[in-house]
């Protein structure tokens, strides 16, 4: 599966709905296998006003759609865009039928030049989060092929929850997160390899997109 995500910050957040409608129509015209275009929840951090996420069967479909989407996001109504295109990485689904839940994506940037063995270690530990934090119903960790925005995003960490409480509660407060995984992100820890600038964005979803 080939995927594309855009986190769109608008100059006037009142225009979210109209832009979302335009993007949905465009994605349908490009035969997106799955799409999720929704306003972000409060609590997102550098996550934009609008989260737009798409899956395609073929790489060329994904790249064609990205090219078609770009002009829509280059208008004065759009203040900034962070985004990635990527091929699905490894993932898991404990609740593939999850409906009316919350989709969350984290865009992160591992420092250039980081030892590949360390990157693999970070990825392996991250992939174990759903094992310890069962509020994560469905998930996927991918490496970005292309990135736009504030950083050279290298990874896409997606999760789905039954509700926002799963993200704000168990995900954040479980010791596997703060006492294990976070050292890769924490500027006070010598193990840090991830840039402090992150895009943390979440929104309501009608059906699973992972």
């Amino acid at each position, binding site marked *: 599966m080939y995927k594309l995500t855009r986190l769109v910050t608008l100059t006037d957040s009142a225009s979210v709905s109209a832009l979302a409608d335009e993007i949905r129509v465009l994605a349908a015209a490009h035969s997106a296998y799955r799409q999720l275009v929704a306003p972000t929840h409060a609590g997102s951090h550098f996550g934009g006003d609008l989260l737009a996420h798409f899956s395609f069967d073929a790489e060329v479909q994904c790249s064609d759609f990205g090219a078609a989407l770009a002009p829509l996001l280059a208008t004065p109504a759009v203040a900034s865009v962070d985004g990635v295109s990527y091929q699905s990485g490894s993932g898991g689904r404990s609740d593939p039928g999850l409906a009316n839940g919350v989709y969350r994506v984290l865009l992160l940037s591992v420092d250039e030049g980081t030892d590949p063995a360390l990157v693999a270690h970070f990825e392996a530990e991250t992939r174990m989060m759903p094992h310890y934090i069962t509020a994560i119903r469905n998930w996927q960790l991918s490496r970005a092929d292309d990135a736009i925005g504030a950083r050279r995003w290298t990874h896409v960490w997606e999760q789905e929850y039954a509700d926002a409480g799963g993200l704000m509660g168990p995900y954040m*407060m479980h*010791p596997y997160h*703060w*006492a294990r995984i976070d050292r890769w992100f*924490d500027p*006070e820890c010598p193990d840090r390899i991830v840039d402090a600038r992150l895009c943390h964005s979440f929104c309501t979803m009608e059906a699973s997109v992972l």
Partner: protein
Amino acid sequence: MTTDDTAVAPTVHAIDEIVAKPGEGKALLDDYLARYAPGARARGMVLEQILVSPPMWLDDQSNTLVFRWSLAGAGAWWQMRFVGGNDPDVAAWWADADARAVSRRRYFASDPADVERLCDV
């Protein structure tokens, strides 16, 4: 998630273990206390213990310094993390300290009796 909101959050510990460059142990300890500790306290950390190994100041070999801090639960940990992680003075301190250290570890821990409650989220 626990439903007893009145319960005191289990204490968590942040432990810094710094192996100083030979002859740097005492000066690094003094700087840690002068430059890092005040800000850490302001971020809610309580300095519980300092250990020096071996218990003498070496001038041609490394001393290992261990600092054990406590925090009032995972919520306090995140508060410390968000503030410290966005403070350029903290980053500058660690860059300086790392230049004077052979190696450094920071890890987080709890009393074994608190593991179950910490995981009940």
